[in-house]
């Protein structure tokens, strides 16, 4: 995938705005609704969001550190890496959500959760927006970040943002479904 760097950032910021607005909608619901599991094996709304928080705890400091330690300047075009692009696209929400395996360390199932989970997630989105905006001045191609599932590979910053944000969108769809809210 090849795309104008600033258009990619604009798109990811818009997606994040959508994610924030959906989370604000979730906040209007009772704790009971938010903790309801559609079936014993699937996550409640709060479990979906807590799962995203786990990812945020990893990726946000990772991205921040890579940006702070880099002087690689922005380029007009971002060209997605093979692996990074594959991860990002596989996470995008589809018409019918395909089941994916989650890593044990990222599984929030059965933890005791309250509405603070949503506030934590919203604060993470504010941090993410700052990082997206900051990265307008940095290379989305040359800066690489680690990923949460293995230490063996790194992916391009532009793909890291796509992975994080597409993953957010995916689980927001699931979270809204679990609360039986109509999708916008």
């Amino acid at each position: 995938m090849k795309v104008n760097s600033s258009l990619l950032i604009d798109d990811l910021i818009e997606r994040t705005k959508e994610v924030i607005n959906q989370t604000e909608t979730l906040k209007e619901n009772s704790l009971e609704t938010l903790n309801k599991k559609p079936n014993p094996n699937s996550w409640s709304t709060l479990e979906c969001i807590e799962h995203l928080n786990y990812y945020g705890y990893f990726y946000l400091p990772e991205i921040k550190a890579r940006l702070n330690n880099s002087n690689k300047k922005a380029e007009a075009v971002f060209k997605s890496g093979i692996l990074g692009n594959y991860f990002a696209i596989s996470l995008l929400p589809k018409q019918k959500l395909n089941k994916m395996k989650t890593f044990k360390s990222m599984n929030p199932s059965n933890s005791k959760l309250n509405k603070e989970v949503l506030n934590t997630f919203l604060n993470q989105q504010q941090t993410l927006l700052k990082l997206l905006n900051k990265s307008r001045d940095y290379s989305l191609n040359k800066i690489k970040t680690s990923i949460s599932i293995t230490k063996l590979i790194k992916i391009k910053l532009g793909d890291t943002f796509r992975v994080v944000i597409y993953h957010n969108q995916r689980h927001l769809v699931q979270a809204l479904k679990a609360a039986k809210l109509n999708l916008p």
Partner: protein
Amino acid sequence: MNLIETLTFRINQANLWKKEITLKRNEYLKVEGSIDTNLYYVTEGALRIFLVDEIEEHTIRFGYRNNFIAALDSFIKDSPSPFYIQALKKTNLKVISKTDYISFLKSNIENLQLWDNLLQALILQQLEREIDILTSSPIERYKRVLKRSPQLFQEIPHKHIASYLRMTPETLSRIKKS
């Protein structure tokens, strides 16, 4: 007709509204880092504009029914803007694009004069706001704003007024009681 009424009347006549948007309570029109060059007219509801630093949110302005609202830095410079714009209740907005608006201004000198008058009024408001911020006494800040825009205290949740006044909600409660 006041300035804004005249302006919207003329925009109506030219049929320049691109679309209408509805926001639910707490939904965002704009977030940090985005480029938004549109001008919005509030037909219903209320919004706040705020910034987020490392520690907290700073509410810097409100928009009410029959106001125009925009990320003016983006509007003027076509640049990314640090401001968030959030609906505080169910809010309806009419949208006009920068391009359409600029050609509307250029089409008629009276439109341009109208805009010029509005910007002058805005500059005066911003100067008042600067004095607010430099006023060290919380009570004086409160009095200035109460006198200038009593509407604020009817329409906007307490915690956002406190943020606008640069004080804690507790301090604002205490001042209101005394």
